[in-house]
């Protein structure tokens, strides 16, 4: 069965006439690149079928998605070999416009898909381009907007919608094209948890109605997996690895998928860890609910012992005392932060969480002096960012912007790192020594003389972390470091941060990725509407469902599964994989406490 499903020539015996799109031996080479990704991939998407395209970053998933409606190679300069036939039309000979009536796209960035000034005009834009009669345009627009629950807001400016709302609008725009196939490329990578939920609930309704075939590129498997009929896996070289029903492929090839760098659902990873620790589940689960159902009837061991935190050793790295921040002038002036007070311990890994607009970024920008705070409100080991010059600040606290490109100011990687030392007047030998050390540490040694803008996304991110740290700052702040990134790059960065943290650097991260919070943060500060709702250990915060709910956030997937356990109350507070029993944990308990009653 598994062998059959993983046969790389695609689902057997599917007549061509019923397929929404047929991808046949497709290789794509972007102009000015040497490698072909994807490289010889064949699969098809049947009518009404939901197919998930998986693969490590760089495998060419997004490129392939763009080839389905002919944007590759017609709008994006690239060479395409093999063929893509969508709704019977060859995408290399039919125009993107002609194909748009049969396949519609939803992209990652909701802002880059909006053209007009009102929700209704936006949905009408596509059908108007198709030269449909006005009555038909409005009929389609109404149907599409009702389907995603935005009909009531049709007269509003799209800018007034939340991120999730704008992405639902993009789905409505795709539906209004009247196509039978929907291609979604990382539709939730830019959204907060509530937005992700909104988009998937809209997609679930759509899939339930059975009217559309869907091709989905998505790293967030925890949100997507229960929608998907079939997965197609492309490996790191762009070749087709597996193609078949979701459960068979994901569970039948677990080890290969992990080795390939494909992200798996957290519930599945948890089951693997438990299996290694000698707790065999009857089925390998894909969703939190399945994990809970499988785990509950088993006899489980005691949770591994956790040590209470070392309260004595805790010294303060950053003190924030009744910090208020207002922006704008005159009538526009509004208070963004209201009297926030908190103490961040030395060596903490603090996650600042909250929905979009909760004041997270404003808080950390004030702490790091990016936007100077009022005097006397912030103290970082004796330094007040409200009155320090840039040189002092650079040696005290490093700040990594959401988009690393924003902070690059020189023309080579080497100078970028050296800059922070030069403005402090370090001598050349010392500068050289520390820059070389930093280049090696962040794997940028071969990139010394390269322009920072020419680095890959992951390299840019590492360089920006290096520049924040080079002047010796003991505290580093990162604003949404995983926003819009794929899982692999996000993990690479977080491993780097965890390593820095283990060596004593205090790390402050703004994020709304709750599983990231659970896995990496020692402490969590919860923001809502400009106020600090709570600041405590990660375990304490994650155990407080009411608080998470009040902040407009969602429990991470593993916590959701564990909450559902009925027979094992002491397991219910587990939120991160590292807290599950494992082979190693039996003789090597985790160094950091995550127990709820540890404070």
């Amino acid at each position, binding site marked *: 069965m598994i062998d059959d499903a993983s046969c790389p020539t695609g689902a057997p015996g599917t007549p061509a006439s019923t397929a929404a799109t047929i991808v046949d031996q497709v290789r794509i080479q972007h102009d000015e690149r040497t490698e072909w990704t994807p490289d010889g991939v064949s699969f098809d998407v049947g009518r009404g079928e939901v197919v998930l395209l998986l693969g490590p970053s760089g495998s060419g998933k997004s490129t392939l998605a763009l080839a389905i*409606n002919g*944007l590759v190679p017609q*709008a*994006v300069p690239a060479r395409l070999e093999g063929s893509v036939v969508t709704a019977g039309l060859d995408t290399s000979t039919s*125009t*993107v*416009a002609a194909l*748009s*009536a049969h396949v*519609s*796209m939803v*992209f990652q*960035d909701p*802002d*880059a*898909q*909006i*053209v*007009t*000034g*009102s929700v*209704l*005009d936006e949905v009408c*834009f*596509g*059908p*108007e*381009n*198709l*030269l449909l*009669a*006005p*009555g038909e*345009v*409005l009929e389609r627009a*109404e149907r599409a907007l009702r389907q995603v629950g935005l009909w009531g807001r*049709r*007269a509003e400016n799209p800018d007034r919608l939340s991120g999730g709302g704008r992405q639902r609008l993009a789905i409505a725009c795709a539906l209004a*094209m009247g196509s039978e196939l929907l291609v979604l490329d990382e539709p939730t990578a830019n959204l907060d948890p509530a937005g992700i939920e909104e988009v998937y609930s809209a997609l679930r309704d759509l899939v339930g109605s059975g009217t559309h075939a869907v091709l989905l590129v998505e790293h967030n498997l925890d949100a997507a997996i229960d929608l998907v009929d079939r997965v197609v896996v492309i490996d790191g070289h762009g070749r087709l690895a597996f193609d078949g029903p979701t459960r068979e492929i994901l569970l039948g090839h677990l080890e290969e998928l992990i080795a390939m760098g494909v992200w798996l659902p957290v519930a599945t990873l948890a089951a693997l860890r438990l299996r290694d620790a000698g707790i065999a589940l009857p089925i390998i689960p894909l969703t939190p609910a399945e994990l809970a159902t499988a785990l509950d009837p088993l006899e489980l061991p005691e949770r591994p012992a956790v040590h209470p935190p070392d309260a004595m050793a805790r010294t303060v790295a950053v003190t924030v005392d009744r910090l208020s921040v207002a922006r704008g002038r005159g009538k526009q002036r509004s208070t963004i932060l209201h009297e926030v007070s908190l103490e961040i311990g030395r060596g903490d890994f603090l996650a600042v969480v909250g929905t979009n607009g909760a004041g997270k970024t404003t808080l950390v*920008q004030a702490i*790091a002096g*990016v*936007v100077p705070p009022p005097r006397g409100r912030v103290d970082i080991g004796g330094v007040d960012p409200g009155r320090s010059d*840039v*040189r002092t*600040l*650079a040696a005290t606290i490093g*700040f990594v*912007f959401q*988009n690393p*490109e*924003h*902070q*690059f*100011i020189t023309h080579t990687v080497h100078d970028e790192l050296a*800059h*922070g030392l030069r*403005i402090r007047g370090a001598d050349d030998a010392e500068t050289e020594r520390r820059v070389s050390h930093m280049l090696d540490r962040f794997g940028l040694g071969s990139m010394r003389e390269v322009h920072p*803008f020419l680095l890959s996304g992951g390299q840019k991110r590492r360089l920006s972390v290096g*520049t924040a740290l080079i002047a010796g700052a003991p505290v580093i702040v990162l604003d949404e470091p995983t926003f819009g990134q794929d899982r692999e790059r996000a993990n690479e960065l977080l491993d780097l941060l965890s390593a820095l943290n283990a060596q004593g650097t205090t790390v402050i991260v703004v994020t709304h990725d709750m599983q990231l919070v659970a896995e990496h943060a020692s402490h969590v500060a919860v923001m809502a509407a400009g106020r600090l709702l709570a600041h405590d250990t990660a375990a304490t915060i994650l155990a407080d469902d009411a608080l998470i709910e009040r902040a407009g956030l969602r429990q991470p997937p593993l916590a959701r599964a564990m909450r559902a356990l009925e027979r094992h109350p002491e397991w219910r507070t587990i939120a991160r994989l590292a807290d599950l029993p494992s082979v190693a944990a039996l003789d090597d308990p985790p160094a950091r406490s995550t127990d709820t009653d540890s404070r």
Partner: protein
Amino acid sequence: MSAARIDPYAASAEHPGIRFLYRLNPLAKLGAPLPAMVLLIFTRDLAIPLSFIVLALLIVLVGAQLTRPIALLLLLGLPTVVAVMSFSFGLWSDASRVDHSVLLFQIGDYRFFLGALLLGFATALRLASLLVLALIGGLTSTGPELVRAMIQQLHVPYRIGYTALAAYRFVPRFGHELDVIRSAHRVRGMAQGRGPVASVRRSLGYVVPLLAGAIRHAERVALAMDSRAFGAHPQRTERTIIPFRTRDWVFMILFWLVSASIVWWGLTAGPGPVGGAAIG
């Protein structure tokens, strides 16, 4: 299904009857003052621009629903700006070419004549009249309305019109991005120092990241528009018809006639150009 009921751009009907400007075609509101604006560039006297300011203000006050800040700006801000500009243009004007009969004040060797002030006043009024005339259309039409009218009546290719509209959405985004880049560069200690040289160096540093972001964003928007069949046909459906009606012709022709009368009166019966023999 009633198209008019749910179309947000059909909302002009909400404005009370007297606010007639909202019911005119944006091109009529642009075309009516255009000849006057061209003529104003070449006038040298006070009466013609002043008359046009009064005319345009009357039209805007009656025909448009002004918010309080805009009304204040027009009625108080505009005279203030004109006064300040008159004085400063007067200082700049070539003292040898103005009338020397009335000396207003003297500082050292510098003498400020009434003639110089009047010359400055004329320039300030000219600029103010151009502004107020442009506001007739500017305050009462939206970007989409203007684009639609240009496509429907002037047959501007819709590919250009709608691309311009999409680009218009970029502006606030880039403003925000520029703010972020600025604080990023500042906190990294880029181009310390004051003065124009440091400031120019700093600004040059913003260009690369801003452009990199802009190009990437533009490419994404273009892909999204292509995916939605933009440019598929020589025409696209115009759901909102912006008609050019009799009233638009009436407004334009009346405005032209009044403009011609003002100019004719100004040239024949009015006080004549500033700086000439007519003054003094």
